[in-house]
């Protein structure tokens, strides 16, 4: 009798990319539901458009690249990219905007760089950056969170806006969309209002809620909760969100203490925009993040710093996508210089030390 041969280990193992990705996707559900509640059906429609396009594009690219389709299409990575992108887009963004962003993410940012595992930049963020640079106007079509003063669109109305581009007769764009709290702060600060004045403004005031913007608080809170659970389970690396949040906290705190009137408080920074989504779900994409322990701290912190800089001084209201992409670029370098000390070796004998010796 001849037995099968294989290299050790011989224990069937349960980890798989698929399990990993689907756990992350599951963890996104509560936050997503909150977003649907606060921002309307557009969230769901975006997710559906993006997912369908992503899966089709993925299949097509795998076929063109002559890769086995089944294992890759079921690994959940394309779906995750689609969902992250969809959540980052405005709810009433026209369908073609979502399609372009998704196509760019999957075709260019992922497959042209070699597909799963080889893309240097976070595909969802690349897709986002492409659309925000190309279509700045459409990218402001955020629905205000469930507020009395604004009208909530129903599903069919949302559909017709997204696909037809036309508004139901009774509405005007101004009535159904508005700037996000982050946008508002930026504009109003530009108009020489102080943070306090903005927060108590008759029009803008209500949207700030109690910490980070009405609705946004809930969304961020839920993403934080499920994100912490993922981190606890070791599904995502906790150091990246920790570094990101710590950096953002320290920076915003320092500046707010320094000038309370013109810098938003840390609580606002942490609970507005997509910070928790970014910290726990976007920045933790393993493919594009740093891989060493120390590198991951630095990587997270770097994103936090860039977010703060772009929010405070940059031209875009929320700089998550740019911050993530900038740190993606730095990841290989971070890895190289934060290599751990191997067992039984001293700190001084590192590969890059060797390299220097070699080159001399």
């Amino acid at each position, binding site marked *: 009798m001849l037995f099968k041969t294989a*290299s050790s280990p011989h224990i069937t193992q349960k980890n798989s990319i698929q399990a990993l990705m689907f756990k992350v996707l599951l963890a996104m559900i509560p936050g997503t539901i909150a977003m649907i509640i606060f921002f309307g059906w557009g969230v769901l429609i975006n997710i559906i458009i993006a997912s369908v396009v992503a899966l089709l594009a993925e299949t097509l690219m795998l076929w063109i690249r002559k890769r*086995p389709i089944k*294992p890759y299409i079921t690994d959940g990575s394309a779906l995750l990219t689609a969902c992250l992108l969809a959540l980052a887009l405005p709810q009433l963004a026209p369908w073609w905007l979502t399609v372009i962003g998704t196509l760019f993410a999957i075709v260019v940012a992922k497959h042209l760089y*070699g597909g799963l595992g*080889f893309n240097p930049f976070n595909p969802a963020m690349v897709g986002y950056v492409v659309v925000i640079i190309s279509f700045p106007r459409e990218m402001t079509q955020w629905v205000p969170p469930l507020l009395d003063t604004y009208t909530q669109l129903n599903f069919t109305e949302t559909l017709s806006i997204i696909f037809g581009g036309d508004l139901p007769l009774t509405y005007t764009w101004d009535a159904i969309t508005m700037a996000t709290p982050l946008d508002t702060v930026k504009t109003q600060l530009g108009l020489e209002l102080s943070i306090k004045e903005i927060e108590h403004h008759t029009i803008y005031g209500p949207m700030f809620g109690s910490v980070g913007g009405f609705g946004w608080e809930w969304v961020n809170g839920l993403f934080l909760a499920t994100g912490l659970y993922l981190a606890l389970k070791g599904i995502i690396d906790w150091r990246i969100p920790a570094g990101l949040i710590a950096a953002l906290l320290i920076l915003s705190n320092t500046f707010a203490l320094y000038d309370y009137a013109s810098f938003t408080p840390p609580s606002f920074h942490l609970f507005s925009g997509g910070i928790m989504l970014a910290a726990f779900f976007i920045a933790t994409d393993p493919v594009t993040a740093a891989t060493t322990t120390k590198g991951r701290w630095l990587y997270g912190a770097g994103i936090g710093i860039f977010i703060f800089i772009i929010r405070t001084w940059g031209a875009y209201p929320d700089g998550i996508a740019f911050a993530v992409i900038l740190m993606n670029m730095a990841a290989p370098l971070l890895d190289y210089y934060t290599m751990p000390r191997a067992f039984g070796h001293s700190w001084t004998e590192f590969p890059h030390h060797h390299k220097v010796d070699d080159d001399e």
Partner: protein
Amino acid sequence: MSILVAIITLTVISTIFGVLLGYTSVKFHVEGDPIVDKIDALLPQTQCGQCTYPGCRPYAEAITSGEAGINQCPPGGEATMLALSDLLGIEPVALDEEHADEPQKTVVYIDEQICIGCTLCIQACPVDAILGAAKQMHTIIENECTGCDLCIPPCPVDCIHIKTVKPEQDTWRWSLPASTETAPKA
């Protein structure tokens, strides 16, 4: 006026750098030409001449002078080509179709029944791996044989044969796992 300043500045800068470059080239001058040695060290020393040069060192010299490519050594195979490309900082070159597979290690042996003791093979062996004297049976020291096969053509009675070196437990090698996705070509 400003153009004059620009010209002067550029001149000064280029002079400084020129001096610096000159100084470093003198200061860090490398003696001799160890590159031939380095190349030679990477070659398998089969001395078989299959690279079209009369031995490993001549081939190393030919590579150095740019006359020969780095993919002409069949016994070294891909490993040698890659090592050379690494050493010389040039792009790897594909081996010829027929040498693309990893070279099989071989040695030769003499059919001692047939050998007539002509000593012709001894004269052909580049590493003195053949023992024998005129009119005496010859034999090959297997450990010394590089498998260059240079002794085969001179033998008037065709008594030298090739045999592949059998893998043994302590020289056996694990194979590269076959993976569905190929690693990035580095």
